């Protein structure tokens, strides 16, 4: 089963070393171009399938400006067979839907049975391009996949649900899967492979070449627009109540231990292990919906 992996080169804010709050404390060197780790996990999953079935061909596809080459060349170094770049300078103005439409237009040129991508990108955290591409191509998709197994054209996956639960789902190809970052540990490309990858010719397409006459591709197809970026509000810290009755030496000792204030209210701090304490524990436990489990009798 041939595979296409959708790869995004993200511009990730790996640190905030600046001093200007108006610029969200972003300093030079804070924004780094890198292959989206979730997409890297998707590619690794494809490579593991190829390790088992050697005739599998893996193509990687990216939409973006010149920096998209970063992810594509890394993918080639990791073991992808070929790479396609939809070169689009206005790509920052393209939201998930516009991006998905363009990717789908490229994917329609070949009927690939399996499309993989990461469940989200670490810069926009939208998690939408995968599902949108599947809908554009009218193929079934499963998101948040933590395990993939192929057998005779049937795709078996394990999908992450809330609270640690898992769903076992089956579908037939063609299909699209979005994978979780921790589905595997991606292989490191070797130095020779990275150097070899620099020489590979990447197929480059433009939006104009892909645009059918009846639809819009590109920034004009976006239905959302990011208008502002701000820093998260600092979490409300519980008020430090300075106890005036302790000596400076004791206060120093307290602060060195990492604290500085005694418990906020006497009523929320209980003492000992008498039945009133046990009952209070039980009450709080039940108020969270937690109860004693039925233990199987041995």
């Amino acid at each position, binding site marked *: 089963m041939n595979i296409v992996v959708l790869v995004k080169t993200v511009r990730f804010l790996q640190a905030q070393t600046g001093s200007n709050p108006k610029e969200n404390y972003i300093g030079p060197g804070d924004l780094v171009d890198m292959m989206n780790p979730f997409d890297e996990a998707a590619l690794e999953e494809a490579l593991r399938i190829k390790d088992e079935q050697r005739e599998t061909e893996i193509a990687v596809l990216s939409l973006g400006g010149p920096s998209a080459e970063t992810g594509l060349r890394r993918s080639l170094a990791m073991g992808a067979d070929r790479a396609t770049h939809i070169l689009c300078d206005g790509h920052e103005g393209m939201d998930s839907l516009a991006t998905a439409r363009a990717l789908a237009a490229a994917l329609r040129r070949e009927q690939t049975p399996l499309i993989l991508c990461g469940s989200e990108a670490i810069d926009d955290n939208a998690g939408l391009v995968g599902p949108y591409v599947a*809908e554009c191509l009218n193929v079934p998709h499963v998101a948040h996949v933590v395990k993939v197994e192929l057998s005779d054209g049937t795709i078996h996956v394990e999908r992450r649900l809330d609270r640690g*639960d898992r769903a076992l789902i089956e*579908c037939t190809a063609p299909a699209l899967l979005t994978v979780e970052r921790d589905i595997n540990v991606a292989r490191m490309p070797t130095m020779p492979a990275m150097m070899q990858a620099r020489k590979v010719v990447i197929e480059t397409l433009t939006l104009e070449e892909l645009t059918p006459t009846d639809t819009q591709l590109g920034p004009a197809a976006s239905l*959302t627009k990011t208008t502002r970026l701000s820093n*998260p509000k600092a979490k409300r810290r519980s008020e430090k109540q300075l106890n005036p009755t302790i000596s400076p030496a004791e206060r120093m000792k307290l602060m060195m231990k990492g604290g500085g204030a005694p*418990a906020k209210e006497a009523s929320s*701090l209980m003492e000992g292990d008498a039945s009133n304490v046990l009952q209070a524990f039980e009450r709080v436990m039940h108020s969270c919906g937690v109860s*004693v489990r039925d233990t199987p009798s041995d």
Partner: protein
Amino acid sequence: MARSNDVWVFLEPEDDRLAAHTERLLHEGKRLSDATGGNLSAILLGPDVAKLNETVGACGAERLYRHRDARLARPSPELCAALLCTLARKYRPRLLLAAASSLGSDVMPRVAASIDAPLVTNCLEVQVGDEIAFKKAVQSGRLQATIAAQTRGTCLATLDLDALPAAEAAVSSKALEVCEIDATLTDIPERLRVTDIIKADPKTVDIREAEVVVAIGNGIGPRENLDAYENFAALIGAAIGGSRPVIDSGILAHERQVGQTGRKISPKLAVLCGISGSEYFTKGIEQARTKIAINTDRSAPIFKDVDLGIVADVNTLIPKLMDHLNRHAKDDAS
């Protein structure tokens, strides 16, 4: 163009009840429908659940849409999406909201792509003004983005459950109109087949996904005492985690470390046993909804930000607590 200013909320079942987040989600929907000047409607797909009409009505909704086909007993994202699309195309509400739960996050992108509507996921806030804008965490939490919808049509959003304010008191006892959705499910193709649902095993689940966590620290003493905590965790269906010293001394594996250099957990209940509460540890439990701490030192910083603090020797408290809980569980059962 939206046909109305109505706000619609997609509800989810949880076994035979409404999901725990339902009231908070409905209250947010009510707040937003007041802001848009429209009405609040709710949708529940699947068999009846306990207290459905009361809960929805009490939150100020005008209408409840239902589809009771047996095929919806196990929530199917494909069927749910198809039904939501039918409704959205017919009534064109201003806002269609869902929780950013695994079902909500699965259903909404399918709807958005199908009806060509903007969708913003994991919203911290929805702002209604001249246009509708959404706030969400980006850059993996380092920044917040304000995203404006570029359309006057229906807008979709999934709401981050941790950011939803607590449910308020019942709003109204308005008569709730219940409408059956007129659609035959046999026309809707289902290309995904769910063969099994595997419930999380607290013994093996990743502590970041665990609903309940018992975290142990230096206060538990030597490693021989671990058994007692494993039994306690098993009793309340909790996963075990630990502070850094406990991992460093080999009592627990490193995947169980809670803290700044370990894993950040967000259980609905965290029981902190013999943990002093240094900043490096508490960074890992900031998102825990309810915290109980047990420590012999009443000035331990862990007590600063917990819902219940108990000054006691955790090694003598835990066996007594297990006895107490077991006895009461038997009483309730008999």
